[in-house]
């Protein structure tokens, strides 16, 4: 009896495993961030657009904001730029840019050429702030709530669909609980 049952159970087990493991809609390189629910790492960095000023995470205390990590060397960041511009034009939350491992001139040129969706752009030339945020690939987009906690991290180019599906409901929920 179990000569039949055992291989059969093993087979069913494999099918279930593969159904989850080989699901093409699942991004196997996306790692869960241990930062979710924790205070967002603080930073004070040079403002890309005006190097005499600085961009500080403290300035966004008490409000929901988005941190978008990008670099001019990152092809997928160019891909998402249009979506970011469209999102910024809705004025739902401030989008803060974090320029990762790049230099100011290139970043400024990028923003002049493609448009600027960011309320402020911080320059993390040596990548230290990125390490604090657990950044391992660009683009990455973080959502921070009014209490200064990271509530969501999205790895991959931003799209209007992702914004609609993943970000807007979380922003609304964060505002409800924050008010």
């Amino acid at each position, binding site marked *: 009896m179990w000569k039949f049952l055992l291989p059969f159970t093993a087979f069913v087990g494999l099918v279930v495993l593969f159904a989850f493991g080989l699901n093409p809609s699942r991004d196997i390189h996306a*790692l869960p961030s*241990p930062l979710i629910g924790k205070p967002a790492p603080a930073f004070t960095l040079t403002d890309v657009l005006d190097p005499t000023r600085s961009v500080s995470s403290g300035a966004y205390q008490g409000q929901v904001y988005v941190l978008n990590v990008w670099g001019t060397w990152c092809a997928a960041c160019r891909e998402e730029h249009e979506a970011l511009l469209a999102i910024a034009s809705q004025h739902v939350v401030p989008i803060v840019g974090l320029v990762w491992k790049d230099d100011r001139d290139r970043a400024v040129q990028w923003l002049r050429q493609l448009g600027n969706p960011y309320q402020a752009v911080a320059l993390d030339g*040596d990548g230290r702030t*990125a390490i604090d945020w*657990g950044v*391992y690939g660009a683009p990455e987009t973080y959502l921070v709530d009014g209490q200064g906690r990271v509530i969501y991290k999205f790895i991959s180019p931003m799209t209007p669909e992702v914004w609609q599906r993943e970000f807007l409901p979380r922003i609304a929920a964060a505002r409800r609980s924050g008010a």
Partner: protein
Amino acid sequence: MNRPVRRQAAHIAALALLLAGAFGAFAGAGAAVEAAVDANGQLEDHALQARFERITLELRCLVCQNESIADSNADLAVDLRRQVREMLVAGNSDDAIFSFMTDRYGEFVRFRPPLEAKTLLIWGAPFFMLLLGGFIVFRVVRQRSRMPLDDGPAIGS
């Protein structure tokens, strides 16, 4: 009269040797990889350098996933090596460095996650598989040892 049984025993011994060899090869492969070149050169303190090498070998390079940050020349690996180095020079313990990394990148950043409830499966699975395999071999051998020995030449021989 017990010739076939002995032959079986020889087969099992050969299989065990093969398995042992495969395990050995896997263990050796990890150590054979050469460390990536660091622009900063070696740390002056030999003890610190030894710890630096050991720690960076145990941290996963997240963009290249099957390499450690000691092996990789990816930008992120270079930055993380710099981080480890600075923390060592500043007098941090190994544990402090590992928890700095896992606080930011999660347990996945460690090649050898600590043994705890949620990592029990990855640590336990190999031993479970070994036991399962051993059990199956044991059953097959016992079953076959009960078969009659003098059933004439096998078909095809």
